[in-house]
């Protein structure tokens, strides 16, 4: 595309009107701030901004309303994670009863918050709705080890997610109704 360059008038060639206009805007902001009519800073951390819905903060694990850890250790988030911040330790072959009818759950779930880029792919890929990007954006710690969040901490921070589907419970109930077969 070729843009036609407009011929400047004599006044425009001196740049004086442009400079005057700029000074006017700067002066207006200056007086607004000095007189206290407009506030442009926030007293962080005493004062905090309202995090909008859909904000992508730190990823945490959730439990359902019956207290079951929703993660089943399928490791898709570990696979998709671009900075490789997630590491899951699968449970191994022993049959476990404490998982509430689901055969599998994570032995450990680590997220390295120093590596995490808050992209949200883990939440998107999760087939169990077990990991969510929450509203935390300011994570601090004294050491690198402290910034690797393990399963218990992630679950505590994540809290409860109200599950409307309850897939595994439904399956279990369905199976129990057909119990004559077992």
């Amino acid at each position, binding site marked *: 595309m070729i843009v036609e360059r407009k011929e400047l008038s004599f006044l425009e060639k001196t740049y004086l009107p442009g400079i005057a206009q700029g000074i006017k805007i700067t002066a207006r902001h200056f007086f607004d701030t000095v007189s206290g009519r407009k506030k442009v800073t926030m007293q962080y951390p005493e004062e905090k901004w309202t995090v909008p819905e859909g904000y992508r903060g730190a990823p945490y694990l959730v439990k359902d309303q019956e207290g079951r850890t929703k993660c*089943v*250790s*399928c*490791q*898709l988030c*570990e*696979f998709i994670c671009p900075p490789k911040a997630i590491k899951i330790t*699968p*449970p*191994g*072959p022993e*049959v476990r009863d404490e998982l509430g009818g*689901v*055969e*599998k759950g994570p032995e450990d779930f680590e997220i390295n918050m120093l590596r995490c880029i808050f992209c949200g792919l883990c939440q998107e890929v999760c*087939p*169990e709705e077990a990991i969510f990007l929450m509203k935390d954006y300011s994570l601090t710690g004294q050491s690198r080890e402290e910034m690797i969040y393990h399963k218990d901490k992630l679950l505590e921070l994540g809290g409860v997610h109200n599950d409307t589907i309850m897939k595994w419970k439904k*399956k279990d109930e*369905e*199976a129990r*109704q*057909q119990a004559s*077969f*077992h």
Partner: protein
Amino acid sequence: MAETTTKDSSQAVQPQVEMVRIKINGMEVEVPKTQPDPITGKPVPTTMIQACAMHGVDVPHYCYHPKLPVAGNCRMCLVEFGMPAVDRNRQPVLNDDGSPKINKMPRPAIACATAIAPNMEIYADSDGSKEMRKAVLEFLLINHPLDCPICDQAGECKLQEYSYEYGQAESRFVEAKVHKPKQVDLGPRIMLDDERCILCSRCIRFTRDIAGDDALGFFNRGSYNTLGAYPGKSFDNNYTLNTVDICPVGALTSKDFRFRMRAWFLKETDSVCNSCGTGCNTIVSSREEVIYRQEPRENDAVNSSWMCDHGRLNYKWQASDTRLDAVSARRGDVREVIDWPRVVDELSGKLQSFAPGEVAFIASGQMTTEEIFLFRRLAEKFGGLRESFPNVGEGDHLLVSADKDPNTNGLFITGFTPAGEQGRNFQSIQDGIRNGSIKALFVIREDLIARGMDAGLLEDLQLLVVSDIHRTPTTDAAHYILPGCAHFEKRGTFINVKGRLQKFMKAVEGPGASRPEWEFLHELVHQTTGQNGFSTIEGLFNQMAGEIPALAGVTWASIGDTGRSVELPGA
């Protein structure tokens, strides 16, 4: 999955058979009229699915397996096809240009059980064929639990793959699914999930026809049809884990591998099993230097598509606590950790201080051919007695060999120990140490105390050098410990009981300071004999092949992925 096309294997063993011209997806091809039956080996008519596989056309299938009898129950391989038209006198009808007129058959046929016929046309990729695959998949998924997130097969599941390729995203089935038993303990090594089973019967056919242990069958009818072991029979033969490999879905899972790692993280390395002289070809799956499983790799000259459970699960020693991970020298009662350059310098100096014949060399059938070759060179330089021990156990009718070492023939072919003379020099070596004519011993991968040598006798030696991968009473007595590598941690070749030369690749790193034996043997040979050698495994192998008549003309590259047969001495 150890399943591939039968193309190379079956054509290679075929004698001259009549060829038949057919058309696959409009492409005119020639295929042999018969193929050997997978069980009996007798020629049987070639089927449509075999003809397609020969020419690179993949017909989706579940119950068909090239190494098993045909069952024809999954219906996934239904294809449309056409046959030459005949008139009422059974004479061919011709087109205007003289070519035979082809009538598309009104009904499809299952490609796995329909024999090919001259001028037949197979429409494997037609819209009709695809529509049928979609419909069959919909039926298969009606009662499928769709628990892929917790299913070990996810990522290598044919149900997933074909659903992605041909299936539909939405289910039209609104009723409750039939629930079957989950987490069924089918045998000591197998866990069964009946809900996931698509009743293809591959496992039943394998156990009955290949393993020869008729332990599995279907129970109940209709939607409640369920796989199980016959009452009073337990599914515990030595080949049960092959059913996990051939199970196209996640119904049969290995208890050993269950919930330990997802398939898509695993790095696959071509290897060879070292548990017996058969040398089954394997795929070693590892992630971040941890081995998670071993699976058979197809090689019709050795193990077909199978391997025994013992060999498959025999990998945990690689990561055991007793692995040696430091080079050390014992000065008096103090053990000092030293590095490789220093140990090679010290050793070559010390070895050269002995008169010819004062050093004896003991090798093992666990060493690779290249290592034995270098070790023989070292032994020849010092003119000492050489010894290796036979390792005999029980064999079976299918794959397990009575020879428990993977490379006994490597000892014979390199001439380290002549065939049939294993274990003959042990007494002379012990006598030699007693009367002082043998002053030093160099042992690789052998525990002499377990072989019956008196521990006090080892104390009499002026120099005891032991290379092993695990700590043993013999390594404890050694003046120098050289930590070696398991075959998972290096490259090399084994020669199996039938003379098949096979190479294996490196899957993981060895622990600590451990080093492949051929590397330090090469340095020792170089420093003591002054001979130049190769510091790469390819160069070393090619040099060895040039010096050993049985390996004449073989190069590292020409061994290939499935090995090649070599002439055995005295065979």
